[in-house]
């Protein structure tokens, strides 16, 4: 019996103590008609040896194409120490730290994480994580609506240049609460979200919050200072959506405009979390000090013990569902503790200088990639706005079959922008992080050139 320690003697003794004859007698309060039969649809149990063989074969089958896609999930180096430590049983198999004295490891680590995220975002408060960047943004918007006492309108302006999957997630999670998500157009030349478009989306009516991705989905840098100042002047809160790696070099949300964004969120994935087909990742959420009581999710505070020594515990639990139930700031119950553990160790290993080097290397590699691909006739940047470490490229031939041919060669060549932005024509979004070598970039360019040439003269 895998994972069950009972010997026959144990079971007999225990049943005798309880005073029943069989294991089945323990279910005697359940109406007989409800009892399940054999679960024939489930295969018989496998020893670890056999499931290991199966999983190894399946993992191998998925291959490991060379990745030139970012689009919300980034292929970064993860130090070996990160997961060797995060997977230690004491982190891996502990629960939410309800008994603070027996959970100082997790609690202190979460406090350190909160400290790192406030340092990165330039905001005063960070929670201990949410599910991922997209659902975290939804929580941020609910929070903004609750927090914005000056504006009762449940309207939020959302750039179309925000990640499409994030926009879809928002629709699922906040639309049912009567919140209206108003799209903002992007400029076809720059790829930025212009102030004029924001004004047009607002339509002169009050709105609770403006979402500001930096960089936006196209990798383009938004004029966050002007947009932040304008939106706050309208009484709206500004919710920044940021990639933490870029914050090593980009102005943090806390510094946007005159007074800084009110809330910032994003995905922790680029900080030590493997791509892993999309999860588990972790969302982070930071805000101004005065918004802390509207914060969803776990918060760890530093306090003192009976001897006056510092220690850590979950705090402001009165916001949460297990206390406040229907009136909680969110239904959220878990954070993504294990991923936060990895991210915290990752950031400690990189430090501020290391993270800046990673950001620089990503920018340099993407620039090299764009240069190389740009040498191919018909390929050119789609937008002329400033970018960070992703770039949208126009292609001379249809993107989808090209990407298919590339993947057959073991290259994940880019994200097909036509899937969500048909108006952009044949265009892809590419990214080359610090782990891509010059050889890999040149090889990609060479193959792409051959594939395009094989399709005849570019139009």
């Amino acid at each position, binding site marked *: 019996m895998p994972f069950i320690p009972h010997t026959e003697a144990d079971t007999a003794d225990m049943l005798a103590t309880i005073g029943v004859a069989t294991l089945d007698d323990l279910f005697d309060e359940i109406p007989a008609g409800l009892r399940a039969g054999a679960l024939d649809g489930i295969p018989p149990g496998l020893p670890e040896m056999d499931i290991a063989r199966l999983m190894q074969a399946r993992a191998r089958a998925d291959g490991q194409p060379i990745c030139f896609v970012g689009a919300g999930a980034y292929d970064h180096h993860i130090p070996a120490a990160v997961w060797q430590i995060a997977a230690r049983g004491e982190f891996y198999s502990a629960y939410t730290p309800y008994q603070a004295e027996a959970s100082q490891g997790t609690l202190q680590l979460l406090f350190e994480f909160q400290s790192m995220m406030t340092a990165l975002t330039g905001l005063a408060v960070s929670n201990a994580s949410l599910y991922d960047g997209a659902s975290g943004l939804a929580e941020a918007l609910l929070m903004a609506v609750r927090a914005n006492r000056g504006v009762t309108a449940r309207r939020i302006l959302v750039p179309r240049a925000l990640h499409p999957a994030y926009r879809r997630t928002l629709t699922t999670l906040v639309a049912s609460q009567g919140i209206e998500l108003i799209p903002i157009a992007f400029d076809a030349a720059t790829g930025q979200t212009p102030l004029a478009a924001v004004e047009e989306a607002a339509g002169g009516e009050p709105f609770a919050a403006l979402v500001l991705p930096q960089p936006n989905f196209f990798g383009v840098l938004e004029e966050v200072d002007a947009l932040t100042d304008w939106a706050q002047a309208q009484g709206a809160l500004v919710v920044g959506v940021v990639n933490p790696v870029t914050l090593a070099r980009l102005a943090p949300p806390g*510094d946007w405009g005159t007074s800084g964004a009110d809330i910032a969120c994003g995905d922790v994935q680029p900080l030590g979390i493997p791509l892993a087909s999309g999860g588990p990742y972790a969302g982070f959420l930071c805000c101004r000090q005065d918004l802390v009581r509207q914060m969803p999710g776990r918060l760890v505070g530093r306090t003192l013990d009976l001897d006056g020594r510092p220690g850590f515990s979950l*705090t402001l639990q009165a916001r949460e569902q297990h206390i406040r139930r229907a009136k909680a700031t969110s239904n959220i119950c878990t954070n*993504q503790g294990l991923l936060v553990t990895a991210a915290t160790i990752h950031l400690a290993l990189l430090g501020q200088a290391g993270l800046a080097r990673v950001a620089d290397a990503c920018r340099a590699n993407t620039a090299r990639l764009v240069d190389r691909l740009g040498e191919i006739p018909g390929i050119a940047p789609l937008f002329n706005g400033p970018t960070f470490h992703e770039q949208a490229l126009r292609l001379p031939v249809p993107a989808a079959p090209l990407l298919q041919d590339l993947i057959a060669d073991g290259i994940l060549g880019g994200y097909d922008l036509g899937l969500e932005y048909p108006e952009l024509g044949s265009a892809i979004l590419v990214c080359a992080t610090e782990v891509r070598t010059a050889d890999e970039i040149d090889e990609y360019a060479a193959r792409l050139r051959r594939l395009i040439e094989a399709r005849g003269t570019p139009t």
Partner: protein
Amino acid sequence: MLIQDASRPGRRAAAQSPSPPTTLPDLPERFRRRRSPALPEVSELQAVRHYTRLSQKNFSIDTQFYPLGSCTMKYNPRACHALAMLPGFLARHPLAPDAHGQGLLACLYELQEIFKEVTGMPAVSLAPAAGAQGEFAGVAMIRAYHQARGDTARTQILVPDAAHGTNPASAVMCGFEVREIPTGADGDVDIAALRERVGPQTAGIMLTNPSTVGVFERGIDAIAATVHEAGGLLYYDGANLNAILGKVRPGDMGFDVIHMNLHKTFSTPHGGGGPGAGPVGVSRRLEPYLPVPIVERTEQGYRWLTERERPTSIGRLTAFGGNIGILLRAYVYARMLGREGMPRVAEYATLNANYLFKRLTEAGFEAAYPRRRASHEFIVTLRREAKELGVTAMDFAKRLLDYGFHAPTTYFPLLVPECLLIEPTETETKEELDGFVEALIKIRDEARTQPELVREAPHSLPVRRLDDVRAARRLDLAWRPTSNDGES
């Protein structure tokens, strides 16, 4: 000491960052960060040592018995971790084509099939990232169902008063009003009260069965009939699924939708509070609304169905496919258990709970529901000890830590005073349970002879009892570069 306090300007784990690029594209001044973020600057050994030592300050399943009621702290098999972390799985970008994910998708498809069979639900989505998101998805599907039928008057969700806090919170997030149903003295839902509260305004009811008070809801047939007759749907909160896995199927009990907490029943890591995963199973009538993505098997292989193929879906709950790595762990676990292992989980979890229940009540502890069969967990109330000895459930809990046991859940459910909700799980030995009983008896003796010892517990942990009131009043939520409070 915080890692931030160990920081020194210019120190670095130099092997961990790339060489500086020779040329760097221009970044306009206005976008640039002015001051470096105050991230810790430490050596690799400092980081490794700091976090290794920090980990040792945790209780965990791998180091202690952890009978935290409602959390199902059973053994998380190490193989599940190793196999979910295979490089082939980790390296896959979420936007890679399905053709480069057939191995992964085969696992996820088969996991869907396993969940269908073991819950008795004809359709499953693995998308929700946690139990609470599963609840949201479930209630959102109920809402979508009524709306699709034009049945827009159904604005209420019924929730028993003993329910997990997530239930009412999730219902509210979906725009519903919550109506509470009282629990009877025997632990079952008060069906008379239910009948009063149900009606054309009822969108559905959210139930945990076995309930949060640790007993099987005997009136489940009547409840299902009552709610269904009124046009409402039944939501099964799978938090306690471990208690009945493979023995009774929520689908057979009449539920229309269920979420499962994989970190409970399917033994995925608790990770200090997550990640979870909250797959949902539904009856045929809710199938059109399942959250995306869902894995489909075709003659050409497996593929992910998204909003495109499932236009009536309630939509997407996270950016990509949910907590995939957790799903892989659950898949490995489910395959190791197999069809014969699933009911054994329920049997031995129930055996352990009832054995502990019996031994504790025989030792003179008061059960909250003494005449009921325990499910996988049960409630002891220490109201007598609190009153007579001035030693509370919290004191017992803290003192247990000194004995090397994690505490049970305290003060939940709210309706039982001074309660301990105790869930031993099926993976603990009889010897471990006996040791726990002995510790509780000793602590009660201590409460009689040296109550301060118990009231001031714990005594052997890295910190003594913490001042939670101070934590909330004098909020200190982050280290600041300028602060002088680095003494911790």
